[in-house]
């Protein structure tokens, strides 16, 4: 019984997938965080962790994390990456991530939430004592959204540590908690029962068995409450009371087969064999791989025998024998097929896994006898987690194969880029250096002119703005003046006057045009500034393009290291797959052999029953003919 309810509480923890915790969409500020959530909501936890890990790494590497959009979600992201790791069954890493949060200087509510998550990991890893000690460290403010979940976990941990009375106290107030309907009611019933309050426990399970809900999980728990209560009453010789609870179990739920079987036994215990025929007749028409159905195949003729319908009983025993024989053949071929390695090959078939009900579909594959009993194997937690690990490894294997192909392509790309750019770059660099020196010279000249214009605003220098023509004319006049000085007489005086007049004209021209020329020079400088800016942009663009060209093929030595890491990881994955696969095969074969032995026992019983029924039928017929 203890394992029975532990399985159930585990069911609750697993069912609360990441999808259940929704984030307010309008508050999302970082698209890459949103991308990680997108993967997580689909159950693609590897991709979610990879995305969020990268984001967190970049966030902590930037100089100002406050400017990174992830800072709006950093607390959430830290917890989410731990959750993703947990769902991806990386409990160690998840635990480490949460411990990192605990070691940081965080608020009391954040610390308490981290402890809650850590305790949940311990509990899931079947370490209830560690979970208990972790929960004891929670003090003070607890975030509202985890309050009920924390209390429920506390109750589960208490129960797992055998402290049922304490669990009762915790579970009591949780009966109206949203999202825990059925689960809290059922656990309270079990806790009461196990703490010695059987009567109150029974009443509580009765209440849990009547909970109304549309949720599949809650409905399954309701069925389980009724099945557990009914089976216990039957076990304690109260078949009349058991009947009511067993009848409450839905006919299509996961517990329906066991409930139908038990309902028949309740009627049989009351010696109402005709009533026992009803559930058992329904039961035997179901999938014969189910243990309850197999037992029903024996129970149904037993009821007919009790009703003195020996002929019918004999026929049903015969039919049961036939079914058991068929099932034994199936089990034998399943074992054979598993030993041939077909089981593992079938499990990783892509086309099967695309279907949501892939486990059911696998069972129905005509050419895959190794999977007939997969549903039954999946009932074992060890098998289920081993299978998940195997499928995870297969996913990793495929990724590594694909990445090796990617690396090949990347290296080809780098090679092509190198072959294209490397010969071009020396000539480009040479031409660039010439242009670069010319550009620097022009920039210096521009700065020089700008300096002069700036100085002229303070100290006017009209001569600086004389045109080239005016400068030539001034020089010519100066030359004529020098030659004229060498001459004597009236002609020299005439020349001097003319030179003075002409100089005066030029000076007049230069000085009167100064303001206009200064304005124009300033405007030209401004225009030149725009051209220089454009030139600088082009220069920067060239430098970036050149840098990008070089970076497109240089600095990729990491591909070699990655190639080695991928190869090593592939080797490890292959080795682990082989070991995990072998473990699955051993588990499956063990289970099938156990079932075969049970079916062989059933065969013996059926043979005995059939022989006995035939004898009695013959005796009854003889008695009838004598009468």
């Amino acid at each position, binding site marked *: 019984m203890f394992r029975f309810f532990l399985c159930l509480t585990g069911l609750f923890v697993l069912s609360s997938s990441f999808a259940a915790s929704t984030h307010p969409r309008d508050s999302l500020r970082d698209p890459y965080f*949103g991308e990680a959530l997108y993967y997580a909501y689909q159950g693609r936890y590897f991709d979610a962790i990879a995305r969020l890990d990268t984001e967190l790494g970049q966030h902590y590497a930037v100089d100002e994390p406050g400017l990174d959009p992830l800072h709006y979600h950093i607390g959430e992201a830290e917890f989410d990456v731990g959750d993703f790791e947990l769902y991806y069954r990386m409990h160690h890493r998840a635990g480490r991530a949460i411990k990192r949060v605990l070691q940081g200087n965080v608020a009391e509510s954040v610390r308490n939430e981290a402890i809650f998550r850590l305790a949940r990991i311990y509990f899931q890893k079947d370490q209830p004592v560690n979970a208990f000690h972790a929960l004891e460290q929670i003090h003070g403010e607890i975030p509202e959204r985890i309050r009920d979940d924390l209390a429920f976990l506390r109750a589960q941990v208490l129960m797992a540590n055998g402290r049922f009375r304490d669990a009762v106290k915790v579970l009591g107030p949780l009966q109206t908690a949203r999202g825990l309907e059925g689960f809290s009611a059922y656990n309270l019933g079990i806790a009461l029962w196990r703490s010695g309050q059987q009567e109150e426990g029974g009443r509580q399970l009765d209440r849990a068995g009547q909970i109304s809900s549309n949720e599949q999980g809650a409905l399954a728990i309701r069925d389980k409450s009724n099945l557990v209560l009914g089976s216990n009453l039957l076990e304690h010789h109260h078949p009349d009371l058991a009947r009511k609870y067993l009848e409450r179990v839905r006919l299509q739920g996961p517990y329906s087969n066991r409930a139908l079987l038990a309902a028949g036994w309740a009627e049989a215990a009351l010696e109402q064999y005709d009533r026992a025929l009803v559930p058992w007749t329904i039961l035997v028409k179901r999938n014969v791989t189910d243990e309850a159905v197999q037992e029903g195949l024996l129970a149904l003729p037993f009821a007919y025998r009790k009703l003195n319908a020996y002929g019918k009983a004999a026929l049903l025993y015969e039919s049961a024998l036939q079914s058991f024989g068929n099932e034994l053949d199936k089990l034998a071929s399943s074992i054979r097929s598993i030993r041939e390695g077909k089981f593992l090959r079938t499990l990783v078939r892509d086309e099967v896994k695309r279907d949501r009900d892939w486990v059911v579909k696998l069972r129905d594959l005509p050419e895959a006898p190794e999977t007939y009993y997969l549903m039954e194997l999946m009932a074992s937690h060890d098998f289920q987690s081993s299978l998940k690990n195997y499928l995870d490894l297969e996913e990793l294997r495929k990724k590594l194969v694909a990445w090796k192909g990617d690396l090949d392509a990347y290296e080809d790309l780098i090679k092509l880029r190198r072959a294209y750019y490397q010969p071009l770059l020396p000539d480009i660099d040479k031409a660039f250096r010439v242009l670069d020196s010319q550009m620097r010279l022009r920039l210096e000249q521009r700065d020089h002119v700008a300096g002069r214009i700036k100085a002229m605003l303070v100290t006017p220098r009209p001569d600086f703005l004389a045109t080239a023509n005016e400068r030539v004319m001034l020089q010519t006049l100066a030359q004529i003046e020098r030659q004229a000085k060498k001459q004597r007489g009236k002609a020299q005086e005439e020349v001097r006057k003319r030179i003075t007049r002409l100089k005066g004209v030029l000076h007049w021209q230069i000085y009167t045009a100064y303001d206009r020329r200064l304005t124009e020079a300033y405007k030209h400088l401004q225009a030149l500034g725009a051209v220089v800016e454009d030139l600088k942009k082009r220069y920067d663009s060239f430098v970036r393009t050149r840098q990008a060209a070089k970076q497109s093929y240089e600095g990729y030595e990491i591909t070699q290291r990655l190639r080695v890491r991928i190869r090593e990881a592939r080797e490890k994955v292959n080795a682990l797959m082989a070991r995990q696969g072998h473990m699955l095969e051993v588990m499956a074969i063990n289970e099938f052999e156990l079932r075969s032995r049970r079916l062989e026992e059933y065969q013996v019983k059926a043979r005995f029953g059939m022989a006995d029924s035939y004898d009695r039928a013959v005796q009854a017929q003889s008695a009838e003919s004598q009468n």
Partner: protein
Amino acid sequence: MHRSALAVLFIVALATSVVSSAEEVSQEQIKGLDEQIQEIKSDVLGIAAKLSRLEEKLLYPSNSQISLFVSLAPDAKFRLDAVEIQIDGKPAARYLYAYKELEALRQGGVQRIYTGNVTRGEHELQVSVLGKSESGAEYRHTQSFKVNKDIGPRVVGITIAGADAGSQAISLNRW
């Protein structure tokens, strides 16, 4: 006697159904292997991170990188079937949504639908959405936007609100 024997058989069957059949597979073996699998998962995640950085540097350098993200408006009531995106008249992305993906978008997930390279400057982005309205009628809507690309990586958010949102049926947001 026979009845009680069968009843016991039933109860035993009930109890053994939850007992694992690990005669030759011990809990230590299961645990040990599980831990090694956790380690290799961690290793492969490390490789994934390095590859992701390599891919970004090699294929989508920041000066030309553009990433398009699709999200659903919180109150979107239509069923999204497909999204098609063109950049400067050339097909960039075309995506058909599976049930799980649609649910992930509805819950607030954001899908990176495209990462590529464009030159600096203005580009035309055309987004077409195909789906079904609340009434079941087919819904198709196309809208064009101008997107400017600068030196750094460009991230464009495309929010789809659907049939009842009028001019906001498809909108862009800069993250």
